[in-house]
């Protein structure tokens, strides 16, 4: 029997067995026999009338060792991205960084990596890699094409089983060479974990600099790993709460043009921006619907703040809430049928869910403290929020309420936004004190793997974009 150590692919391959097993008539219900989680007996055996029973607790979840040697090239060619041999080295480094940052993989240290020749890409030296402790191996190549593009090949191997698990090739313009590395990392991550991809995606956020109270705030965009950073606005007007359009071609945000807060849409390609709602009232907290046809936003009028929607092309807003108090922070469910939002109608900020037309508004948060900035997961299974108590913390709960879990425990974490696969959340972390300094951070659903995203200046209000096509 082959004894592969690639846990998750085998898990996926065997899932069919589990499904098939459901056809077998099940014996008496097991609920009574099964001990509650965390209460397994220290001695793992029982030999009663039902025979031998063994209790196993899994999930210590050590990161998987994975080897990612530099990608060779068929011929060293100068390209706008650099020479192909150097690009090959950088590609493997980006893949290693992506996988390491996920918290699920430990790349083999560079000192243990060997040079891989071009023919060896499809014929790995499994015995050598086995000796490094790697369970998986990523090899690939770079080739400059006659039309100026680059081809990047990406191969994933099971070291112990000495077999190929996946391969994928990408043709990219030299300016997009980093994306080939993210796509390769996504292929590996998806194959080995069963989760959806997220490395080839971008984050928009508010870049901040200057003393507290006189901060210059600019709209900025970067890859999810902080690379390819650029500023979109010049800082003449304060900007807040940027959110990607589903097609990634534009960003909706709030700006204080002429010192009046209003909602604008910024076209990433042209650099042009347009006002969405022509209204004298204050409008804020915008967000696109999943199909991109609508923009949810809040509008304050006559001492009351309610949630509205307007066509993304502009027009007359449609009011969705009308309760006394402040209703804001609307976020659509992935299928567009529901909206989660925050409201202080009960006296303090709490989370509510309503149908997309504003009907059937129901409160779902009932824990102690207040809740703000709810965001529906792209998988639809969770809602992320900011829990306001002595500190601000990022948490998640079920769309029906309940199942609350706090993921961070710092002084002031707020404004969650989901990765495209719904496994990671980016948020803003502020430093305690008078500096007003804030940075962009990420945390996964376990709450264990937390890290700061490097930005040239301070960063606030990050929003994760969809997976790039």
């Amino acid at each position: 029997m082959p004894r592969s150590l690639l846990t998750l692919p085998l898990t996926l391959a065997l899932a069919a067995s589990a499904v098939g097993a459901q056809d077998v008539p099940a014996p008496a219900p097991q609920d009574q026999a099964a001990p509650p989680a965390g209460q397994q007996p220290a001695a793992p055996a029982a030999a009663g009338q039902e025979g031998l029973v063994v209790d196993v607790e899994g999930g210590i979840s050590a990161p998987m060792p994975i080897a990612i040697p530099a990608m060779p090239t068929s011929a060293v060619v100068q390209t706008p991205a650099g020479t192909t041999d150097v690009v090959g080295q950088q590609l493997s480094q980006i893949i290693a960084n992506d996988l390491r940052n996920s918290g699920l993989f430990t790349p083999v240290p560079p000192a243990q990596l060997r040079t891989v020749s071009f023919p060896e890409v499809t014929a790995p030296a499994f015995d050598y890699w086995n000796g490094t402790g790697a369970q998986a191996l990523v090899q690939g190549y770079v080739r400059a094409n006659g039309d100026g593009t680059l081809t990047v090949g990406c191969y994933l191997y099971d070291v112990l089983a000495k077999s190929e698990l996946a391969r994928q090739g990408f043709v990219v313009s030299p300016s997009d060479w980093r994306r080939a590395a993210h796509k390769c990392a996504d292929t590996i991550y998806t194959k080995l974990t069963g989760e959806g991809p997220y490395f080839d995606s971008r984050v928009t956020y508010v870049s901040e600099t200057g003393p507290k109270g006189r901060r210059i705030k600019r709209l900025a965009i970067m890859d999810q790993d902080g690379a390819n950073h650029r500023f979109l606005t010049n800082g003449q007007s304060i900007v807040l709460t940027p959110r990607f359009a589903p097609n990634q071609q534009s960003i909706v945000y709030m700006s204080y043009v002429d010192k009046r807060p209003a909602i604008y849409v910024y076209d990433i390609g042209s650099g042009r921006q347009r006002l969405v709602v022509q209204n004298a009232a204050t409008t804020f907290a915008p967000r696109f619907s999943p199909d991109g046809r609508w923009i949810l936003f809040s509008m304050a009028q006559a001492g009351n703040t309610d949630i509205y929607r307007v066509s993304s092309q502009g027009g007359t807003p449609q009011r969705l809430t009308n309760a006394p108090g402040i209703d804001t922070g609307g976020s659509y469910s992935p299928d567009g049928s529901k909206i989660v939002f925050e409201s202080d109608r009960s006296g303090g900020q709490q989370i509510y869910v309503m149908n997309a037309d504003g009907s059937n508004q129901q409160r779902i948060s009932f824990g102690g403290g207040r809740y703000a900035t709810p965001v529906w997961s792209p998988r639809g299974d969770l809602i992320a929020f900011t829990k306001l108590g002595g500190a601000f913390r990022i948490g998640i709960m079920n769309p029906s309420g309940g199942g609350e879990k706090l993921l961070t425990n710092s002084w002031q974490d707020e404004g969650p936004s989901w990765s495209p696969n719904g496994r990671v959340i980016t948020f803003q972390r502020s430093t305690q004190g008078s500096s007003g300094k804030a940075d962009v951070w990420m945390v996964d659903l376990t709450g264990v793997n937390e890290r700061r995203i490097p930005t040239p200046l301070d960063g606030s209000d990050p929003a994760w974009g969809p997976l790039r096509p």
Partner: protein
Amino acid sequence: MYTIAPAMIGTLVAVAPVAGQIAPQGPTPAGASQSLFVARTILHDIQPCANRQTNPGPGAERIVVTMALHLARDGGLAEPPRILGHGGVNADNERYVGQVDAHAIASVVECAPLRGLPAELYDAPNGWSHFTMRYTLPG
């Protein structure tokens, strides 16, 4: 950017069950201490593979998977693990049941064949030819 070559053409083939030759021997029931030894040996072999599993999401740690296992005399799987039932499933975590099932199955399959089990207790009452495994993720 566009993609070339079919994605994920490599597959990891599920481990084929070994058809164990089960010899009808005169069974001697395993005593309590013997059963404890067998259970500890099984756990010793399975735990390294169980340790590599990841929690798929909040509440998954409350799911208890009960599974029937049939071993061959060489400690390999005589047939694929069979899910018998679940405990701790509610509306909040039911979407993770399939993933926890897969984790439970992989824990055994990846670490089989199991070693060091006493041959004389293979098909004894309370022996190890057939046994039940209950699997959970840590909270």
